[in-house]
């Protein structure tokens, strides 16, 4: 392993192609941490945005006019403003209004750090799209199916959980996957509030080493592979979950 790393140091000395995250231990650790943070942030946001979508779609079917209106307001607000500004607004504006806690270095720090705010903000952003996606799926479930379930004595929650949602989920999977792939790409925005994800770490490295070109190409390839793997997995899943004869 060290042999390979050393080879890249030689590569730099010989050709000027500088890939310090391969031969410099400090930079390598940063890059690996960045990659893991991107993955972690993506997973957390994927999870919560789907939860928000499911709950939001359920609330949208509620009988209360105001519940529907609030959900709608949320969707329109988050869909029609830039996610970067949302992130800033959450982190700098709302973050400072929250109560503070004593931290381990004797100061007062906000309850939520930059990672948490990035996760919250991006989940809400992607969640706004997911609500609409799930709702379109729920509408695709025929009334008669729900009525049949009612006749069998299912409760409202049971119908949503056991009948409507599983059917709707399969219908909306392509749209949902598309949105989730977008979400993974959007995690790069967390860079702006100094969440140490891949882009942030790459930026630190090119600031220190003045090797923008190499880092840029590496980043493009890294995301191409990361998103490519995700798209491939999602497509397989779509095929496996497909409802025969539909669509």
């Amino acid at each position: 392993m060290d042999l390979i790393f050393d080879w890249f140091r030689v590569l730099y000395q010989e050709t000027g192609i500088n890939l310090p995250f391969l031969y410099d231990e400090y930079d390598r650790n940063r890059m690996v941490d960045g990659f893991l943070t991107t993955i972690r942030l993506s997973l957390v946001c994927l999870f919560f945005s789907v939860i928000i979508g499911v709950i939001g779609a359920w609330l949208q079917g509620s009988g209360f006019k105001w519940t529907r209106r609030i959900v709608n307001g949320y969707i329109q607000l988050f869909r029609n403003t830039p996610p970067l500004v949302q992130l800033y607004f959450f982190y700098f504006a709302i973050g400072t209004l929250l109560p503070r806690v004593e931290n381990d270095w004797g100061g007062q720090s906000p309850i939520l750090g930059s990672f948490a705010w990035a996760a919250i903000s991006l989940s809400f952003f992607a969640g706004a799209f997911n609500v609409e996606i799930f709702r379109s799926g729920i509408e695709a479930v025929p009334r008669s199916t729900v009525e049949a379930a009612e006749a069998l004595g299912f409760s409202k929650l049971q119908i949503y959980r056991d009948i409507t949602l599983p059917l709707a989920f399969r219908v909306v999977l392509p749209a949902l996957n598309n949105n989730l792939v977008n979400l993974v790409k959007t995690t790069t925005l967390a860079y702006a509030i100094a969440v140490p994800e891949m882009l942030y770490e790459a930026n630190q490295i090119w600031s220190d080493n003045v090797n923008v070109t190499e880092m840029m190409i590496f980043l493009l390839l890294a995301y191409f592979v990361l998103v490519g793997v995700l798209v491939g997995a999602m497509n397989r899943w779509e095929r496996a979950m497909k409802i025969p004869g539909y669509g």
Partner: protein
Amino acid sequence: MNCKTDLPVMLPVSKPEPEPFCGLRAWHILPLALLAIFGPSLAFAQSDEGVLSPLAVLMNWAPLLLKGFIFNLVISVSAMALGTVVGAMLGLGQISLIPAVRGGSWFVTQFFRNAPWLVLLFFAMFLLPFEIDLFGLKIPFPDWLKAILGLSLPVMANVSEIVRGAVNSLPSGQWEAAESLAYTRLQTLWLIILPQCVKRMLPPWMNLYSILTMATVLASIVGVSEVMTLTGQALASEGGRPELLAPFYGFVLLLFFVYCYPIARFTVRLEKKFAVIG
């Protein structure tokens, strides 16, 4: 879009009908949003005497921020125009009969669709030269032009997919009928297929524009003097007073909402209008 059978297995997916925003008409939103943003600032206003209230400070900077926002719109329109033209060609390349063109177009489309917008923007920013020497004529490449190019890359890839999707969504009978009438492939595409596609492409295209407009703030991260950059600099000039952050970023949110929300409503209306019955 309702099925007429009694026992459908599954209904076709429909776009949800948008309710008016909290039951309000579009113009209601402006005063409400203003209140939401400036309300808290008004509370602050009473506390200090020597220092300007956050609202007054924001009013001071608002003209400059508005100028920055107009610059965002210029970037978005230019990037959209550029991306659409190149993307349309790429999309047609994806349905070409020549395998090499098809494969190449597919790869370029996928590559730029999979890369995050921000990374592409960084790419354009740092790797494009400051000027191009073309036959002795020096063409300058200022920052904003690079931002436009950087943002038009993902637009291009998405437009390419929209074109491909729209063409593929037409029943193959259209192609076969045209062929039997002795149209050439180019004629079929130009006279029969594409005119029908325009309707299908318009709503997703407008969605894309909306997304692009919201992505223009990314240019701030690479140093273009658009609204977010100016907001940051204004905040720095005011000495980083924390109570200014909410009104300033809120103001930027408001600017985008006022611009993008009507576009979103209009898109939904178009979708409904163009929806094919059955």
